[in-house]
């Protein structure tokens, strides 16, 4: 099993979600995140005083998937989240040892 984490532009959430649903992903977790990469921040001006805003708002999507599907799902996310502009985000996957479904107690791939 793998945990795929994607940091994307907030307005891309609907497209990514739809693409994952179409692929057959049954569930995901979304949280708000802030950060910067090459995009860096932007400048705001208040009464003539400039402020550098370093952290850019992003969304973090987490999906637990079967190892066999991981590469395909990463592809799906990358395609849906891409705008070809700087600041599109990153997607990565890490191996997961244990997953338990709270309601039934099922473990392993059964719990995905």
């Amino acid at each position: 099993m793998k945990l795929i984490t994607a940091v994307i532009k907030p307005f891309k959430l609907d497209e990514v979600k739809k693409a994952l649903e179409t692929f057959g992903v049954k569930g995901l977790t979304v949280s708000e995140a802030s950060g910067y990469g090459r995009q860096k921040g932007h400048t705001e001006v208040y009464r003539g005083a400039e402020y550098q805003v370093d952290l850019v708002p992003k969304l973090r999507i987490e999906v637990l998937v079967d190892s066999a599907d991981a590469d395909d799902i990463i592809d799906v996310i990358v395609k849906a989240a891409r705008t070809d502009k700087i600041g599109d985000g990153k997607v990565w996957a890490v191996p997961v040892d244990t997953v338990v479904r709270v309601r039934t107690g099922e473990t392993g791939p059964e719990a995905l």
Partner: protein
Amino acid sequence: MKIDSGNTAWILTSAALVLLMTPGLAFFYGGMSRAKSVLNMMMMSFVSIATVGMVWIAYGWSMAFTSGGGLSSFVGGFSEWGLVGLETVATADDGTGIPQLAFVAFQATFAIITVALISGAVADRAKFGAWVVFTVVWATLVYFPIAHWVWWSDGEEGGKAGWIFELGALDFAGGTVVHINAGVAALALVLVLGKRRGWPKEPMRPHNLPFVLLGAGLLWFGWFGFNAGSAGAANEIAGIAFINTIGATCAAAFAWIVVEKLRDGSSTTLGLASGIVAGLVAITPACAFVTPLGSIAIGLVAGAVCAFAVSLKYKLGYDDALDVVGVHMVGGIVGALLIGVLATTAVNEGGADGLFAGGGVSLLGKQAIAVVATLAYSFVATYIIAKIIDLVMGFRVSEDDEAAGLDSTAHAETAYDFGTIRTGGGSGATLAAAAAPAPAGGDADKPEGAAKKVEA
């Protein structure tokens, strides 16, 4: 008591309009402050209503608007303390006047907002109790005397009047008394309290610009009472003051965002809101003495000058958090001096002719004296008052409280529920009483103990 009902209705309405300016100011300032201190910022305005309103009734009116005997040029007396006996008095007994108490109420709202205006400069760091004491002491020793200098006269030919009134300097609705006074007092207070931790290196952005715009709108709305109400009657002077309160404000708002576009690249909502206030400030002393075109000229100058003046604090190193000095002191000075240039008796026989109306520089000179006198007295008196309060009780909160924000440390509240970890619709907070152990049957002491815990 023979009164004019139309005039009375307008003054009563104006008094309510001007009182609304202070809550408006609370939003204007509150939106510009940081989220951790917005309640404290708004509270400083609102508590001024409470304290100054009482003091005004107790002795403020009397100090500002009665004869002070031998000291009449400088301060009033206590003959009308508590407004005792004013119930049946009218401002004029020939049927053109209004009930004296209606005028007292109208003037109360001016004293209140002047004190509240100062608070923006010391956002995020003033001890609340010290501020409460300051509102009373400052109103007593600075506002009431200056209002007396400028506005009081005994109404008789060759009679007594405040010294600036007698001098012939013009201040229709409070450019010197309210705005220059509050602006320079803010500067003195900032010098006593010092900078916010981290200023100017840490970003201290306005946390809610829609609040700032809401506040600017309420201020403008209330300002019609402030300016047109200062005519003291529902007459042609009120009409002039009213249209000029539109002309100058529109011009200043526009001028400010043009300066921003040229200088910074973008016109901002904060700039527009600030321009509105700068225009209102500048037209306040002049609103009944200049033509509508003159009001646009005053607004354009005030908007542009103030847009630059707010940057001075970074060069000079004083932390006037919300630019009370740059907007109210500078805007007030612009308005007071431009009267000397643009005033004309063509719009108001009670006024005077300025430079452009062929009156020479004499009016300008008088205006300058009024400005300098107000600047000097208010700055020195405020500095001394603030220093004494600082020595006696401390005017500044501890470093820890400042870092945590004054809302939670001074008022035991927070403005917004930022809790992201929610429990079934709750906020993550637990009612202290509910968190205490359930009282054992018949044990009457326990619930009381829980209640005490809440207070603590």
